[in-house]
């Protein structure tokens, strides 16, 4: 602390608006900025409280529509609106002032207080925010305000009584930035955004929330609301008395204050021999493998196959085509969103978070078991079909009910977590058989194919097996 010297003036230390508008928006993609606006809708429902815990579809009846045109953007919801006092003091400030306190109103995902402003800056230079919770209001962002260096308070007006009667918020942005204009003119891009919402909002939509996205023209054609991307895992009933079967790995409990549920397993049958061969060459099947992570129902990581979710860490192999059937989901929930490993863009995860690194240990445990299972069967693909007999799929609500019905054991590693780790079927031949594979001249394979099957189109593997069996038979007969 300087004590002796005389102060001769002050140096400007406040951020310039230009810095915020340019830098803040450069770090976020348009899709993520738009998802921020949607997050505000859902947080509105949670904050205003009608969504009851325990209700399987707490968001039923709530909806948001996003209209995207080269000239303007509108998002409108019926999710409760912004209370006038919150609007006056916090909602339009940059970041949440400490006086606003934590959210304290349930499991939201908004925590930094920049989502709406950042999205408006990303979209354009002129905007109207209308909202009605108690007293309806309109706040206007003008190009002059956006271009000005000063941080003047924004003007607030009364909202006419016929608007937003269902209590909700409507954000309209004009003077869109050039980049945004080109995105919104491209119907393929809009559809790509719908797919993003179908994934990142899959849990929220499955709980009844309705999101409709399209151009004005698409709305005139009555475009339907987005259908949630599904998450499901395969299970079979136990066969052959061994009790071994395909079933989800389940981990549930608390890490600190965060509720954790983890489900992992297979979402499809393992690759057949032919499929595996083709996958080596080029990716032919759509890839739904990988880990999904959701914080307070908002999916922040979708089907990840990197170190971020434990692939290629510790004893878990790196992801590759052979593991195409393995998938898992992590649900983290906490009434204080600051305790969740959320990042500001909400796509990706704060990997340094303690909660997440403990959860990741459990994820790796499941992945490791599932990769070993896949590896064991890789050698005996022809027996694979037997293990799927009487299989069915469990969707997320069915999976979430498992911890109350299964015999869960306590995790030694992490206090507060109970787990269920099923025993998967093992190929019996593993102990008695060996895999034979070799390369031969095509012309020779054809010669043998004609000899054994009178058909040159028979697969080389089948021809090889026939030749092997024939030789074996001759030798065994000779010995007798």
């Amino acid at each position: 602390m300087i004590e002796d010297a005389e102060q001769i003036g002050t140096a400007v230390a406040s951020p310039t608006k230009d810095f915020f508008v340019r830098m803040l928006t450069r770090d976020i993609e348009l899709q993520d900025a738009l998802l921020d606006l949607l997050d505000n809708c859902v947080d509105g429902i949670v904050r205003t409280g009608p969504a009851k815990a325990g209700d399987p579809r707490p968001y039923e009846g709530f909806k948001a529509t996003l209209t995207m045109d080269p000239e303007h953007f509108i998002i409108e919801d019926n999710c409760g609106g912004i209370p006038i006092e919150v609007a006056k003091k916090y909602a339009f400030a940059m970041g949440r002032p400490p006086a606003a306190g934590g959210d304290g109103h349930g499991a939201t995902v908004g925590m930094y207080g920049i989502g709406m402003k950042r999205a408006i800056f990303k979209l354009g230079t002129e905007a109207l925010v209308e909202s009605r919770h108690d007293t309806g209001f309109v706040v206007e962002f003008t190009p002059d305000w956006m271009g000005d260096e000063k941080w003047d308070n924004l003007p607030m007006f009364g909202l006419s009584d016929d608007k937003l009667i269902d209590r909700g918020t409507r954000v309209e942005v004009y003077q869109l930035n050039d980049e945004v204009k080109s995105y919104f003119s491209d119907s393929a891009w809009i559809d790509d955004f719908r797919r993003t919402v179908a994934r990142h909002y899959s849990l929220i939509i499955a709980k009844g929330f309705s999101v409709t996205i399209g151009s004005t023209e698409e709305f005139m054609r009555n475009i339907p609301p987005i259908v949630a991307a599904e998450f499901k895992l395969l299970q079979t009933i136990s066969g052959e008395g061994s009790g071994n079967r395909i079933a989800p790995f389940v981990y549930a409990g608390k890490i600190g204050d965060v509720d954790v549920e983890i489900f992992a397993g297979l979402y499809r049958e393992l690759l057949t021999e032919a499929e595996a061969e083709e996958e080596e060459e080029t990716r032919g099947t759509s890839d739904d493998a990988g880990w999904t992570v959701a914080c307070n129902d908002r999916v922040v990581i979708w089907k990840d196959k990197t170190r971020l979710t434990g692939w290629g860490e510790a004893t878990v192999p790196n992801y590759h085509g052979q593991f195409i059937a393995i998938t898992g989901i992590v649900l983290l929930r906490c009434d204080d969103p600051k305790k969740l490993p959320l990042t500001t863009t909400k796509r990706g995860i704060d990997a340094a978070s303690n909660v997440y690194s403990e959860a990741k240990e459990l994820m790796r445990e499941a992945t490791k078991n599932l990769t070993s299972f896949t590896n064991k069967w890789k050698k005996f693909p022809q027996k694979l079909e037997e293990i799927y007999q009487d299989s069915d799929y469990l969707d997320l609500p069915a999976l979430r009910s498992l911890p109350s019905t299964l015999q869960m054991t306590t995790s030694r590693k992490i206090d507060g977590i109970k787990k269920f780790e099923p025993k998967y079927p093992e190929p019996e031949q593993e102990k008695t058989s060996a895999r034979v594979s070799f390369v031969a001249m095509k012309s020779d394979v054809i010669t043998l194919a004609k000899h054994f099957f009178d058909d040159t189109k028979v697969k080389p593997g089948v021809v090889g097996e026939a030749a092997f069996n024939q030789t074996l038979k001759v030798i065994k007969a000779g010995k007798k």
Partner: protein
Amino acid sequence: MSGASIPYHLRPHKSVDRRLFLDLLTRFERWRPLADYVYVSMGAYPLEDHKLVHRHLGITRLVAFDRDEGIVARQKFNKPIETCHCLHMKSDALISSLDNILTDCSFPNPAGIIIWLDYTDPRQIGQQIREFESLSDKLRAGDLIRITVNAQPHALLDPEAPGRTPLPATEKREKQFQNLKRRIGEFLPSESSPDDMTLEGLPLTISRSFGAAALKALPVTGRYTFCPLSIIRYADGEQMLSITGAVVAHDDKDALLERLDLKAWPFASPDWSDVHQLLVPALTIRERLFLERGIMNKLPTELVSELGFDAASDIPIEEFLKSYKSYYRFYPTLLTADI
């Protein structure tokens, strides 16, 4: 019966589709001359399209390829000119080393490339769409891509064993949709559903999936975009979908469409959702000449009543006349000849 097993000259739809492609290329010359382009296509054994682009557009830099050595040998015999290179190669290998291949064929730095990937196997739609994605990423402004893929809903399921009760339609469509989703899930339009697994819905779904793949290869904020020009479905046996489009700088897209005057061209598809149906019944020469004379000034109902029958090769004449008006100039006349 798959298209590939029908003799080439008995596929009138494919023949007209190819002629329409040629007509589109002729129009494209309003934007850029094509004579110095390289033309790359599978071409099958007769190299029909290679012959056409050489004769009509004067293109001499020709490349044909096939995964089957026997077909390549036949291509070498049938090639229209010496500068047609016939390569034994799979499409993914061709795409991944396109530049090297052109150099090996002594066509380095051509004015542009026209490439036609004529796929047939419906089970490989996943690879096909990803190959299109990686090809789009390799091309420059002015290059043209044409893709043909199977768009027959039945082809998404393995044939049912003879004697078994067929699946109910809803169950069948559900299975078809699941198979399609498994193959190209990440590209599927967001609102697609099992209800789209119809002769009309599937081509539209596939076309829009190709649109999504094009967007992945050439993002909105990049320099180039893939502009669809013509999307057509037709069936000689199994239904096929052919998509033709050009890589163009974002800023030039409107100018390109205006120069080509595609509004006046009946098979134009400025959007991935504009899929045209091509109906080509096998007509006798007498029928064809009769229709050709009347098509421009008579109503379809009049023509049908004068013909005295309302369907040819299971295709309703009235329905077919709507599309015939747009392509009658390209209707193939096939004559039997003793040579």
